[in-house]
């Protein structure tokens, strides 16, 4: 599939006038600026979170259940809106997008969920192709890109199988293929290994690392410590609504804090 043209893809699709914005290519791909999100008044999920994700990074977002990992990702693909602050995607404030612009945003973001979110009575190819069909691409191009995406995730030749007949690991691979087939600027993974056994989980993590090596920014939400230790990446811990960062794994976070991290603040 080649190296994704992140800036060009976003500039072409995201700016309403459709012109490539060279300045956008040098900006961080994602900035959270003083983000507050509240579901219950007495317990905000996110409290003035400040975060910068550079293009091409692979970032873990971790924390205990209910810490706000999924909420943070939802804010990025505009399934939720912030109560305060800004979410800048390629320099553009997502919160100010009109309803008509949200679909355009989502075509530049690939999302993978814990429960795969496939349509079980659709074929594997159809589940992947839908991400391209909504853009109105010709059938010939769709077939070609779907085939390449399935090959990339190790499911070449499985296009005609019904998604509901696949194993959990295979279904997650299909979900990953759907997330990347459109060459998105960023891939958001919300506990993608939550329903998989440890071996498959590492397998899927490897898939995301390959995607990242090809140039796609990856934001990977997980509470699985095994994955955090297996891959020395930048980690953001959500703790009591605030974001604590480490630039090189859990050990880095501990040294950054100047003391071993409190057990109750680490993911289980």
């Amino acid at each position: 599939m080649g190296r994704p043209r992140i800036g060009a893809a976003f500039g072409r699709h995201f700016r309403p006038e459709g012109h490539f914005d060279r300045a956008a290519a040098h900006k961080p791909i994602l900035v959270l600026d003083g983000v507050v999100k509240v579901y219950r008044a007495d317990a905000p999920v996110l409290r003035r979170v400040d975060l910068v994700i550079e293009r091409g990074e692979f970032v873990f977002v971790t924390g205990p259940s209910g810490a706000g990992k999924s909420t943070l990702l939802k804010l990025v693909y505009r399934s939720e809106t912030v109560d305060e602050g800004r979410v800048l995607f390629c320099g553009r404030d997502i919160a100010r997008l009109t309803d008509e612009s949200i679909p355009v945003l989502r075509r530049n973001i690939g999302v993978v969920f814990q429960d795969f979110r496939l349509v079980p009575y659709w074929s594997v190819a159809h589940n992947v192709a839908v991400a391209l069909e909504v853009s109105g691409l010709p059938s010939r191009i769709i077939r070609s890109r779907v085939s390449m995406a399935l090959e990339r995730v190790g499911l070449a030749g499985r296009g005609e199988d019904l998604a509901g007949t696949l194993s959990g690991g295979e279904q997650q691979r299909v979900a990953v293929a759907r997330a990347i087939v459109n060459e998105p600027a960023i891939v958001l993974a919300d506990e993608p290994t939550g329903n998989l056994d440890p071996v498959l989980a590492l397998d899927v993590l490897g898939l995301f690392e390959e995607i990242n090596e090809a140039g796609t920014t990856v934001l990977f939400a997980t509470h699985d410590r095994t994955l955090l230790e297996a891959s020395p990446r930048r980690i953001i811990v959500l703790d009591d609504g605030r974001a604590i960062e480490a630039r090189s794994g859990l050990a880095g976070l501990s040294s950054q804090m100047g003391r071993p991290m409190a057990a109750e603040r680490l993911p289980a």
Partner: protein
Amino acid sequence: MTLLGRALRGIREHARTHIASTLTVGLALFCLAGAILMLENAGALSARWGAPVRMTVYLADGANAAQVEALRSALADLPEVSETRYVSPSDARAQMFELERDGTLANASVDLFPATLEIRLAPTATNADRLAVLGARVRRLPTVSDVETYRGLSDQMRGVLQTARTLAFIIALIVMLCATAVVGNTVRLSLSSRMREVEVLRMVGATRQYVRAPFLVEGALLGGVGAIFAIVAIAGVFFSVRARFHAPMTAILGMSPAFLSAWIVALFVAGGCALGVTGSAVALRRWLAV
């Protein structure tokens, strides 16, 4: 893939649901088609029987045969008149003898029975007002003692038929509302089994129109095919009943019931499509937070 292609794919993937839905809608529309058929024939019946059909001209005593014949010919030439018949006093007594059982009036003197001209009117060419004017003019003729237009009877008949027509219209309206509700609920059921589809489409960047449009097309197809089923079914029932009871119906009603015209059938199918789209739109609006 085209919009129609996506809608047909959705129908194929949920064929059983759509078949059941189409039959349900077809049943509702069958009732509607029946109500419309009643409405149409009630209208024709009203036109046929609501109009005045006869008039009796009572001849003055002493009118001679030539005068009576001149009056009869003049009336026969009128466009409103289809038939005229002279009934002599003895003919009238004979008719009374046939109607009466005890023969009291039939045994009375023939002088008690007036000579009349019985006028049969062309129903489509006459209305009550025109007949009243004609009756008034004939009444002024010297050979005429009185004219009976039976206006009260035709007014009553017309009133009854108009009431029947109104009832049929109300039934049609109620059935149409029910059919809309059936279509809406059917689409909602279809939607509820396809929420994952909708969720995925929105997640990958489909616009609202992209998500909604196939459901609207499916609704139109559901309503249109249901309407066709209804027309075929009602035609089957109508023509088989008419074939079996044609003679007695014509004798009683004075006319042969007619099926819906091609124009009404076309409108009905188009209306079915519109009903399907409306039901889908309502269900989408209420049940799909897209």
